[in-house]
């Protein structure tokens, strides 16, 4: 009975999303292909935006210029926060490094937050920085994917970037966000420009007493929460109004709203894969990709739920004494004998699994489910404390970010998958006795160069900084926990930044706060700068290189498929794709997985936790 309850939530959300994704993909293809006939006013706006058909380079330049302007704009909004309206609490200016980090974060659809929304941002910043970025940054990846599809169709002109942005925002995200916003308002999410309420607590003195002996009132921060949550989820942004993100009762008031926020972050990434097949006229091919992604998706959720909801917290259970020999490097016999004492279990009923850091309002498996989904689709919102997941369960969100193509973010997940696909087809596809082809076009040196470059960015930006921070005070002083868990925190943070995910393992002291904060976290500035740079580099290169790849491939002549050509819509192809993703992913990240979650799981408890 219990296992049924545990699995019901993830299963029902996944099924529901799949059902919605099919018609939605059709609508999306219809919109992005421009086959709609808009009302006159919207048509007028679109005509103003249309600067003509662009080749991939012009498209890419437009994308970069737009994002640069967005950066300047975002920096200005946050830096000028003290002087802007809708700031009754007179919130000051964030530290410059934090502003850089946040601007980079929201512009790149990452939404890694080195600040806490309700503490550090005014409603003006929430609306004009956060919400605005969440609409447009989500569209950037979608536009890039659309351009890639058009290039694959053989078009030398891949569309107009500004028109595509307009289509994505006006016809996809705005209506969907409006619909969900109404739903969230009905569930009790605040929707106001008021900033905060002072309320008396039910339990007297719950907030302590003032000097004059009076009970302190509780300050409840409110704002346009119902407006922010839908696009934060739909656009797989994940940057919450509150620091607690979707665990906060205002951002995620009920089990119903939890169902729909989870659904909201999944639905566009699901539909995008199907849109890819529709727009290319290769629907069976996209189904194979979809199923491969779904398999990985179910795998990561299953892993997280299995090791978190269905297993107790090993930190609370009893452990026997362990005697270990630690071999000194290489020298035979020169081992250090170590005795790990037995630990007693705490009197905690663990039959409901690991409940630390969970919002039980949503059910026991909601946290693990959400935790896995949010990284698979690179949303980054969270409704539980990832830091408190069981060690092995914590591996699941990391794997999601490392692979970064289990549906993935808006467009970019599909783009990342294409990289794995091209590399898999190139390496193994030759085994049919032909030069590797994708969509009938021969994959040559130029395409492979671009694919490899795009693929290398991700591990480089995760492993390089993780190594640097792990060995220096930057990382060691910021860790909330020493040992393997602290190492996991570091790796998680860079994985989240590089995957443009934005979720946090937490436990790292990375918050500087306001510029005049006398006691910032000691290593907040290097973390701000490092993750900010990682986010920027890992965003644009892996979008631009595949665009160049698609353009180069698209211009080649497509050979007709036959008995001798590799078919891309079969079970075998699915196995090839699955194998490529799993093996390449494992080869790149297995050592850090061993040093982090696996070492923590296999090691003594309490150890680094």
């Amino acid at each position, binding site marked *: 009975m219990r296992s049924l309850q545990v699995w019901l939530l993830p299963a029902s959300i996944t099924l529901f999303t799949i059902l919605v994704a099919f018609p939605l993909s059709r609508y999306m293809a219809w919109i992005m292909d421009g086959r709609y006939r808009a009302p006159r006013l919207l048509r007028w706006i679109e005509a103003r935006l249309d600067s003509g058909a662009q080749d991939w380079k012009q498209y890419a330049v437009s994308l970069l210029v737009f994002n640069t302007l967005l950066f300047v704009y975002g920096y200005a909004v946050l830096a000028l926060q003290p002087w802007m309206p809708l700031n009754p609490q007179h919130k000051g200016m964030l530290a410059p490094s934090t502003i850089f980090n946040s601007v980079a974060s929201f512009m790149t659809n990452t939404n890694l937050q080195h600040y806490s929304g309700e503490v550090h941002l005014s409603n003006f910043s929430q609306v004009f920085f956060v919400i605005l970025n969440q609409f447009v940054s989500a569209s950037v990846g979608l536009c890039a994917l659309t351009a890639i599809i058009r290039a694959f169709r053989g078009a030398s002109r891949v569309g107009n970037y500004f028109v595509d942005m307009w289509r994505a925002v006006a016809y996809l995200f705005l209506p969907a966000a409006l619909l969900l916003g109404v739903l969230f308002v009905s569930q009790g999410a605040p929707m106001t420009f008021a900033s905060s309420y002072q309320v008396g607590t039910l339990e007297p003195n719950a907030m302590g007493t003032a000097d004059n002996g009076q009970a302190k009132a509780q300050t409840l921060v409110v704002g346009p929460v119902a407006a922010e949550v839908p696009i934060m989820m739909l656009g797989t942004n994940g940057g919450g109004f509150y620091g607690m993100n979707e665990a906060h009762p205002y951002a995620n008031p009920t089990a119903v709203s939890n169902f729909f926020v989870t659904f909201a972050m999944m639905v566009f990434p699901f539909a995008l894969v199907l849109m890819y097949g529709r727009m290319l006229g290769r629907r069976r091919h996209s189904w194979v990709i979809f199923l491969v992604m779904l398999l990985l998706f179910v795998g990561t959720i299953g892993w997280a739920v299995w090791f978190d909801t269905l297993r107790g917290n090993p930190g609370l259970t009893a452990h026997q004494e362990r005697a*270990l020999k*630690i*071999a*000194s*490097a*290489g*020298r*035979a016999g*020169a081992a*250090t004998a*170590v005795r790990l004492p037995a630990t007693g279990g705490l009197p905690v009923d663990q039959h409901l699994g690991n409940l630390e850091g969970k919002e039980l309002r949503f059910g026991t498996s909601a946290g693990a489910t959400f935790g896995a989904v949010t990284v698979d689709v690179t949303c980054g919102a969270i409704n539980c404390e990832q830091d408190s997941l069981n060690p092995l369960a914590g591996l699941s969100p990391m794997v999601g970010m490392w692979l970064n193509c289990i549906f993935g973010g808006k467009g970019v997940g599909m783009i990342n998958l294409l990289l794995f696909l091209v*590399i898999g087809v*190139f*390496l*193994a*596809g*030759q*085994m*049919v*006795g*032909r*030069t590797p082809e994708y969509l009938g076009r021969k994959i040559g*040196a130029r395409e*492979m160069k671009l694919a*490899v470059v795009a*693929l*290398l960015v991700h*591990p480089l930006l995760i*492993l*390089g900084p993780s*190594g*640097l921070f*792990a*060995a220096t005070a930057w990382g*060691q002083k910021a860790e909330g926990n*020493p040992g393997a868990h*602290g*190492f996991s925190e570091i790796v998680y943070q860079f994985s989240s930044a590089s995957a443009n995910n934005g979720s946090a393992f937490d436990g790292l002291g990375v918050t500087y706060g306001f510029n005049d904060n006398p006691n910032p976290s000691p290593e907040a500035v290097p973390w701000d700068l490092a993750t900010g740079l990682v986010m920027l580099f890992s965003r644009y290169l892996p979008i631009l290189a595949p665009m160049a790849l698609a353009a180069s491939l698209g211009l080649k002549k497509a*050979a*007709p498929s*036959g*008995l*001798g050509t*590799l078919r891309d819509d*079969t079970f*075998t192809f699915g196995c*090839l794709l699955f*194998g490529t993703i799993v*093996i*390449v992913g494992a*080869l*790149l990240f*297995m*050592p850090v997985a*061993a*040093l982090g979650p*696996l*070492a923590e799981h*296999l090691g003594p408890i309490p*150890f680094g936790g």
Partner: protein
Amino acid sequence: MRSSGAAARVQPVTRDARQPGISRRVRRRRLFEPELVGEALAQSFVMLRPDIQWRNPVMFVVELGAVLTLLFVIQGAGGSSATQVPLTYFIALDAWLFLTVIFANFATALAEARGRAQAQALRRARSETAAYRLDRDGGLREVPSSALRPGDRVAVSAGQTIPSDGEVIEGIAAVDESAVTGESAPVIREAGGDRSGVTGGTRVISDRIVVRITAPPGQAFLDRMIALVEGAVRQRTPNEIALTLVLSGLTLAFLIVVVPLWPMALNAEEYMTSYLGLSQPLQSLGTDVPTLVALLVCLIPTTIGALLAAVGIAGMDRALQANVIAKSGKAVETAGDIDTVLLDKTGTVTVGNRQAAGLIALAGYAEARLAQLAALASAADQTPEGKSIVRLAQQQGIESGAPPLTKAAQFIPFSAQTRMSGVDLPDHRRIRKGAPDAVVAWVKERGGSVPDGFQEAVQSVASQGATPLAVAEDGAIAGIVVLEDTLKQGVRERLWRLKQMGLRTVMITGDNPLTAATIAERAGVDDFVAQATPESKLAYIRKEQAEGKLVAMMGDGTNDAPALAQADVGLAMNAGTQAAKEAGNMVDLDSDPTKLIEVVEIGKQLLMTRGALTTFSVANDVAKYFAIVPALFAGTLPWLAGLNIMGLHSPTSAILSAVIFNAVIIVLLIPIALKGVKYRPLGADALLRRNLLVWGLGGVLVPFVGIKLIDLVLVATHLTA
């Protein structure tokens, strides 16, 4: 009865049309011939030179790692090692790293040596002709043709082979140039004028000429072709370039994985030291540079990196073994990608000549009588068609009556004007056979008439794709001989095999569309070009290419040259003209029209072998991680021994086993690299599934077994702590 166009020119190739000696001498070599192995071994050490090794980025990284490790060995031997790792471990590690590079070099060197040996065998065959050199004093001296220099004069008499390319300076002779041109009719070559050029390998049929040699030894046409083979060996094909790039990318990726491991391992050492409250800092292999080098070498795709060049060279070598000289490796590689094959009907699909297959007697003639008449008319006809008519009559028990005819009978040969042949017997009977309309005209001329059913019979025969041949006696038409194109034995199976490979087969013929369609259907080709002209062939190739397809064709004539040049794979017959051979990108020394099938398979095999070894190489890494990662951190995180699922003896034995496996697998896979993965025409999907299981899944599993075995051996022989 010749059909128009190109098809008609393809003569059935007889043995004597080949270059004598050439096809014989290129034999299959044993894989590890001691002589070649020795040569390759020496070369593998020469190739350690960085400027040579640099060309193979993957192995260059291994070499750098080996040198770096060597520095640690020297440091350790000097007693100033900062680590506690035993020196013997460093030495063993370094030895195996160098061996890895040497094994890789050996694979390449062996493939090159085999290729060279193959080409040398060819060249030797060419140069062994005896020549009679004219000395200044006018004396004749017998020398090998390889000793001839430009300016030397040689005398060639009837029946001798012209030793090298040259110019006739004295005399006039009929020369059989079929070995070079494919034309069996001898040509006249004489001193002076533009008919004085002679080609090495051609044969003088009559008279005696003196030739001044113009080509230095080894520079004659065929020699140049062989030189091309050798030169092409070191050129990378487009696919090879792309693959090298990916392999370099993977190398870079694993550098990205391994380099940060050093600070990460340091982090683990520090916190474990403080966690356990030790006074001495812990040290694991994770911060030991040679061990990290070993990890890097195990992870980067050394297997395919080592064998890539060998695979490419072996591909050309296999082509050579099939007696096909490919002018570039690219041509062989392209052969695997071919979508459409243009096949000449004659010689490829059909035996090459129409054969009498049946008789239709008309106007009261008995079939036996008709057979006799037809045989009489063909008694002196030495064309394959004529012979087949006689044979058919004999099968029906009828003697052609040739002996009594020999003296008095007068044979009328076939001519293009009359389009008939036949015999005038001593008793003044005239028998003719020939094209129906010509025979009808002849009969009418003599006051005869056309019997009922004649036109219908003619048409019905033609509509079945056969050729009707009318037979008449004096003024009366006796009936029709049905000439049919006979399919070559096994051609249906071979075409089916091509189809299974995913190729579209197109038959090229000079026949009319009706005949062509029937033969196409009988043979099972997908499409045909009837009444083909060189222009229509070229147009067809262009049309296919416009659809994104790659086209292969075989040709021999000068008028095939444009099409051969246009085709993605143009296989010229060695018996063909010089122009054809220059235009194509491969030459078939056997002039065998079915060779295209083999060439396509060789191309596919080449690509498959590359893909299989790459997949295997990458899949291998999974097991190596399970061996090395727990070993790296045994000194800090002993509980990671849970990952040591192979149960390897000790950290150092685990790392050595992985490195040894990584090196040994190169040698073990050399036979596969050289012989190629067997290609089976199963269709792409089945082939991929099969190869994914063998090389992908196998690649994951095999090293688990291999590394464990090596570890057991190391422990059993006390070679490791």
